[in-house]
């Protein structure tokens, strides 16, 4: 293999690819990046067996070939080279890099042990508009569970239902749902659970306006194609809990409150709630809502916020307790001015919505309080 490539391009690509290598894997080749020179382009790929990436870089290929190189070494090296043209030449299991005033020889590994990685998307199942997808992901990713004992909850459920894509995530205590309207229509409903990591990478990497998406059902694999790269991941096996059942249909209070006010109150309460199991109590009164938290060591605080309250049980005061982190996560993800909170009773989930966006819905399970 022999080729010429720009240091800037190679350095960027290596930074991305090295995130996909697994440094602690028992198989050393998984800590390596695969270089493949063919048809006047250089493909760089890496995998940690859960997901993988393939980047295509424009270059001048003089001799085709392939080699794998430990990610750390080559990334550190290329980053620090002076910008300009580099000459990469692989001979057996060694790669020499020739830059301006630098010559380095890196020991690599045979490519035969490297897992095979798909090279293209094929016929795409769907083409997704970037901005809508990124917006949807930002509203569901924070609610994904980190608990490995329930694998299905460690991913985001994506449902393709005629002219609509629904993103759902839950960790068992809260649930986020965002619908995205699209022009494409799917005859048959498709459901897929994708790991959180690949979606986070997607939001970091995508620059193109369109994202191509393809499933390989029998391989339980999903592929995203955009820009000059191809992102792949496994699909999480299993049945997502029936989330539609738990979304409350009615409510006894509807509270309309300013987002910034509420966020400030939540942050103020969190000072005390941190020592008291993160519990913040929300009291609904006629004038507005009161947030209070107390800890046995730190003290207590109370914050009143004006709010518009509608509901049948207006005369009684209802007290409901939430984990402040959940409230904070939700409020941070929101970009509207107001928040609409619908509550039924102190033991049923609270429904949090954006009054301007009917396609977004967030549920938070209250903390039980002893009366």
């Amino acid at each position: 293999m022999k080729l010429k490539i720009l240091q800037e391009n190679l350095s960027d690509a290596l930074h991305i690819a090295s995130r996909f290598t697994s440094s602690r894997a028992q198989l050393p080749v998984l800590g390596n990046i695969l270089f493949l020179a063919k048809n006047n382009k250089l493909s760089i790929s890496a995998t940690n067996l859960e997901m993988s990436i393939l980047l295509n870089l424009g270059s001048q290929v003089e001799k085709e070939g392939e080699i794998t190189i430990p990610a750390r070494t080559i990334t550190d090296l290329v980053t620090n080279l002076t910008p300009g043209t580099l000459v990469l030449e692989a001979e057996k299991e060694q790669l020499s890099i020739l830059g301006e005033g630098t010559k380095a020889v890196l020991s690599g590994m045979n490519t035969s042990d490297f897992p095979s990685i798909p090279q293209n998307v094929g016929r795409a199942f769907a083409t997704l508009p970037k901005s809508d997808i990124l917006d949807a992901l930002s509203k569901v990713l924070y609610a994904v569970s980190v608990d490995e004992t329930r694998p299905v909850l460690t991913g985001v459920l994506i449902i393709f239902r005629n002219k609509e894509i629904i993103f759902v995530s839950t960790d068992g205590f809260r649930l986020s749902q965002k619908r995205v309207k699209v022009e494409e229509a799917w005859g048959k409903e498709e459901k897929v659970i994708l790991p959180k990591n690949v979606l986070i990478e997607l939001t970091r990497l995508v620059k193109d306006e369109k994202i191509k998406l393809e499933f390989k059902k029998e391989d339980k694999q999903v592929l995203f194609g955009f820009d000059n790269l191809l992102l792949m991941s496994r699909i999480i096996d299993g049945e997502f809990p029936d989330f539609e059942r738990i979304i409350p249909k009615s409510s006894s209070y509807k509270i309309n409150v300013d987002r910034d006010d509420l966020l400030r109150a939540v942050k103020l309460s969190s000072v005390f709630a941190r020592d008291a199991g993160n519990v913040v109590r929300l009291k609904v009164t006629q004038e507005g809502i009161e947030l209070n938290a107390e800890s046995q060591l730190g003290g207590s605080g109370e914050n009143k916020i004006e709010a518009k309250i509608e509901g049948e049980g207006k005369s009684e005061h209802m007290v409901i307790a939430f984990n402040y982190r959940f409230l904070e996560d939700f409020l941070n993800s929101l970009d509207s001015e107001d928040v609409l909170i619908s509550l039924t009773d102190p033991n049923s989930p609270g429904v949090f919505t954006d009054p301007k966006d009917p396609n977004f819905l967030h549920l938070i399970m209250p903390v039980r309080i002893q009366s």
Partner: protein
Amino acid sequence: MDIDTKMLWNEISESVRVSVSSAIFSTWFSQTYISELKKTGSRYLAEIGCSSSYVKSTLELRYYGLIQDLLTKSLNYPCDLSFVVKQKIREKEDVSIIAPLFQEHKDDSVVENAMVGAKLRLNFTFKNFAVSSSNQMAWAAAEAVSKTPGSAYNPLFIWGGVGVGKTHLMSAIGHTVLEKNADVSVYFTTGEGFTNDIVEGIRNKTTQRFRDKYRRLHLLLIDDIQFIAGKDAVQEEFFHTFNALVATGGQVVLTSDQPPSEISKLEERLRSRFEAGLIVDISPPDFELRCAILQIKTKERGMVLDENIVHLIAGNLDTPRKIEGFIVKLMSEMNIKKSEITEDLIGTLLGKGEGDNGQKLKATPSEVINAVSKYYSLGKRSLLGSSRARPVARPRQLLMYLLRTVLSLPLEEVGRVVGNRDHTTVMHAVEKITQLASNSVQIREDLRGIKNLI
């Protein structure tokens, strides 16, 4: 044809392990398994389940021949392979853990109403029941009954002394059953309440209503069943109620202060019915359990006590009821006098010995002196004498402690009884033993032994 695919794959794996490096083995083979094995004609078709498509493609490309050879050798037939991506089904499926958001939301008021209807105490649940070796058996049986009422142990008969938690356990069963399904009919009553219901039924000629009320229950809880002993009509009615309930799959839970065999005037047929179920006893709580109970109870009232104070209290009070009473006293002390909880305060409160709520031992000072001298095999003369050697002095202090706390004698009187000593000596002795009781097992044992002798 029945081949254990798990065993077979273990065999194959072991052979593979020999021919590849351990890194390769753990990356590609450890999560792999045979998902299906079919025989068609004289050939086997094995479907290999892989954890991801990377594993699948690597195995297909590089290890197909190796696996095929090994399988062919193990099965003695030619073998074909196919690979699928299929995650291994976990041995322990975690369907039972339902995240709170996905639990059935029952209107709490419904459950609460049901509990009020069943006359259950709301705060007697399994959650706030402390378990140690003295009541573990009873607790496990009660848990089993609450999970599958009517089938685990029927009837469940719990017996034990006062204040050991029989009623708590029984209520907790009703609580759990109702929490699961508020429509189940549960009724909690006492042996006395049951008797009154019958008497009323007979007086108002409404025995039919009485029968309807009891015989259609799914779970009947009767506290202090020993009270129906000796009442013939009541026992007969209970016998029929019991039979009717058990026949329709209802669960019966009973408590008593004695085992059925020792309840006098209990009809033989009832006794044999009780003995057919599970009889468990709860013994008085040990020191550790008393600590746990104390902590649970103080937590319910929003108090936090230091470890040493918990030990001090649990060491000096022997039944949960006394502990409860003591907490009430402590609370009022805190609220009214605004005093802080210190070991001194606890010491004085314990030393006053008023917390017994009428359970005071009726004994004369000389009986207590006899008990102590008998327990330690010490002559009365030396016990009341002037020797200050520890083997004599410690029992003497114990004696003063007992006279003060159990008989509530004034300090001077105690001093007078114990060889004309000064009241300050008595104060010191009481303080000393109060301290020791919290950290010395021996002293606690001695105290109990002597109390039993009195």
